[in-house]
């Protein structure tokens, strides 16, 4: 577990450093995610001996972190509720745009993806 935490923090740190250094709009943790994924895939390709231990260490930490992922968004969500007054008179219209737009996008993307997958597997 502790090894897993160390590896994950280390990759986030690398990601944050890369983001700062190159002044990128991609968030540091996302760069960390991509680098860790790359390392995992490389280790698998190379068949390195310590790879199984590495993966096992990460496994328990990641399932602990991802188990209740929605909880981690509660603090920002509360911040939004407390600061929503900046929208003033346009609040309802903005909420309307967001609601209709989001539901429509989910529907569109899901139908498209499902159709493409079916076509792909039929071939």
């Amino acid at each position, binding site marked *: 577990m502790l090894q897993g*935490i160390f590896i*994950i923090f280390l990759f*986030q740190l690398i990601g*944050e450093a890369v983001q700062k250094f190159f002044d990128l*709009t*991609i*968030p540091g*943790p*996302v760069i*960390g*995610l*991509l680098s860790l*994924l790359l390392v*995992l*895939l490389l280790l698998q390709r190379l068949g390195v001996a310590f790879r199984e231990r590495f993966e096992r260490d*990460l496994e328990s*930490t*990641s399932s602990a*972190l*991802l*188990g*209740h*992922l*929605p*909880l*981690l*968004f*509660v*603090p*920002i*969500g*509360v*911040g939004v*509720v407390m600061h*929503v007054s900046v*929208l003033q008179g*346009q609040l309802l219209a*903005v*909420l*309307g*745009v*967001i*609601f*209709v*737009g*989001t*539901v*429509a*996008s*989910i*529907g*569109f*993307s*899901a139908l*498209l*993806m*499902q159709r*493409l*997958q079916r076509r*792909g597997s039929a071939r």
Partner: protein
Amino acid sequence: MTDEQRLYSIWVYLQAEPLFWLTLTIGAYLVGDFCYRRTRLFPLFNPVALGIIIVSVVLLAFGVQYERYFDGAKFIHFLLGPATVSLAIPIFRKWELIMANARAILTTVLLGSMFAILTTYALASMFALERDIVLSLLPRSVTAPIAMGVSEIIGGIPSLTAIITIVTGIIGAAFGTFTLDLLRIREMSARGFAIGLASHGIGTARAMSRNETAGVFAAVAMGLSGIVTALVVPVVVYLLRI
């Protein structure tokens, strides 16, 4: 000291403690989780939305500043970064499934992101919103740091975009499942992908908490749509002369 005074002094002590707000946040989320498991009907009864509502009601009722609350809640907030990095592990586990769907993934992310941007623009024009609010709305489907960066580039208000982005995530998490059930989308990969594409991290969190395949596809969609949106929104703004 009367009992009432004593109770009040305990409250005064407790509300200054970060631990109190940390505990409240987890408690509110657990209550939300419990209600969701019990009802499974009303979309707003999902753990994030209910957790946020409960905490906000407590803060507003007792006139607590957000900064004080965040003093405790920041310990949870901090975990967002490591949690994002650790998405690499389930993605790695499902790597072959992702590669097998690579074409569907790339096509959907391109067309789906464009759809999200253009419907947002169409709806915002319909509601006759002010120009800087329209611009702040356009990148709303992607993760907040990217959305804020894009908003700044095109002349929107980044802090407003942050709020809009979070609301988008909560709505996607709350109503996504309902929408997908209505459209009879059964494939977990397509369900997760659509939610991640339209409602970034909060939607992904929701998908991940229900099914690993859905969560992994949501995470992939969120990452790719972030890139596509960052590239496409400035072009759309230029072409449509918004």
